[in-house]
């Protein structure tokens, strides 16, 4: 009986006439025939075959790069983070600026990456980038500093008032309150203040006040006086001396309102003022301007004699 497949033969119309006749004679035939007839009318709920194909195409395109799919999903992330971290580090390193600061009453001596020496005078700030220093020797200065620059290509000191370019030299740059003073002690210095360019040789000094050349006389020293606490002033107004005293001695100096700023005060001063003894310094200046000083703690008030 195991091998009996007569019903399958019948369903597939494979019976010969005799077999068929015998089969039709059986009582079950009616049911079988109905099954055959009605099962032929059965249908399957239909699917959207187009959508199905779209899905396959979508997945298939992904399958075109099987190697990519097999990568651990965190691998590209780790790589991205590494690249990002590296990029940020590089960015920070290349853009990192070093700032040197000398507060009022202080000095700051420091070396640049090429061992150039910089001495910042009181109340000054210098900023530079250590990255790629040897091919881009540039320093931003706000205030006054003395430079002893190592041999090499150009060296730029950028101030809000102009740029000083030097080659292996010693020089002083002072950029304060709209006035730029540059003195060359050794080598050659180029000063550019937007309007004009001046070359300085040792002993020469140049000063611009609001862009105007003050035509200062040559100096005779080999180093700026302030390094030895003897500041040289060339054609300065009283206000500039007062500002310098405030920086050096860390005091506040008020000019009395009664003092006529137009007459005496506008007189320009040229000379050296000690920066290690405020009384001596005041004694030297006050007679010139016919002023007297009154000291109260860290505040000095200057009034007319």
């Amino acid at each position, binding site marked *: 009986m*195991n*091998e*009996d*497949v*007569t*019903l*399958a*033969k019948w*369903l*597939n119309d494979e019976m010969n006439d005799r077999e068929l006749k015998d089969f039709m004679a059986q009582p*079950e035939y009616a*049911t*079988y025939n*109905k*099954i055959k*007839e*009605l*099962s*032929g*009318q*059965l*249908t*399957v*709920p239909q*699917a959207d*075959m187009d959508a*199905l*194909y779209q*899905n*396959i195409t979508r*997945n*298939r395109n992904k*399958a075109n790069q*099987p190697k990519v799919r097999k990568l651990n999903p965190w691998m590209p992330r780790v790589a991205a983070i590494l690249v990002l971290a590296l990029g940020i580090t590089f960015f920070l390193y290349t853009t990192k600026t070093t700032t040197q600061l000398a507060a009022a009453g202080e000095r700051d001596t420091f070396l640049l990456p090429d061992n150039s020496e910089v001495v910042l005078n009181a109340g000054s700030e210098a900023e530079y980038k250590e990255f790629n220093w040897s091919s881009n020797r540039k320093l931003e200065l706000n205030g006054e500093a003395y430079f002893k620059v190592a041999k090499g290509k150009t060296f730029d000191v950028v101030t809000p008032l102009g740029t000083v370019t030097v080659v292996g030299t010693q020089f002083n740059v002072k950029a304060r309150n709209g006035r730029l003073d540059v003195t060359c002690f050794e080598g050659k210095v180029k000063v550019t203040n937007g309007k004009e360019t001046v070359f300085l040789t040792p002993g020469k000094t140049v000063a611009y006040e609001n862009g105007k050349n003050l035509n200062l006389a040559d100096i005779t020293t080999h180093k700026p006086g302030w390094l030895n606490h003897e500041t040289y002033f060339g054609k300065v107004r009283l206000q500039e001396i007062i500002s310098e005293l405030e920086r050096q001695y860390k005091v506040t100096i008020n000019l009395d309102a009664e003092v006529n700023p137009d007459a005496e005060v506008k007189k320009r001063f040229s000379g050296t003022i000690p920066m290690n003894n405020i009384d001596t310094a005041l004694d030297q200046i006050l007679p010139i301007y016919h002023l007297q000083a009154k000291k109260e703690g860290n505040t000095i008030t200057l009034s007319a004699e």
Partner: protein
Amino acid sequence: MKQDNPAGICEELTFSGFFRSHAKALRNFLYYKFGNEEQADEATQEAFIKLWENCANVPPEKAKSFLYTVANNTTLNHIAHKKVVLEYSKKNVNHDTNNQSPEFLMEEEQFKVKLQNAIENLSEAQRSAFLLHRIDGKKYHEIAEILGIGVKAVEKRIHGALLQLRKDIDTFR
């Protein structure tokens, strides 16, 4: 492994043509097994994606059997079986219904329901073989290929299915 020949199943046109001629039957077959449309759709997609991924290694004449092998392997992992919901074709081809007596029509409706229930109660192997023949009009040798069995085994399943269906229907008559 001739990668320099992009023809065969890897060719877009060949692939879509192959899909059109085989996808529906494959989906029906999977539906008979699962009794669930979603699973049938999913397994159909999976099988075709597998075929595409291996298109370079499958010659066109082997593609069909590859497809059904993959599908059969997939179904092994899905044993949970749900109801196979089948419908009768709306247009009645064989009968001019207007000429039938109401009694006859009612009887036929009852028979239809019984047949549906009986099909549901068939074993999965019998149902697949039977419905592939009845709904998809597959020849026995085609069913054998699809199921990965011999023609004789198909005939046995069909025979068994008919036997079982008749018993079920006549028992509840």
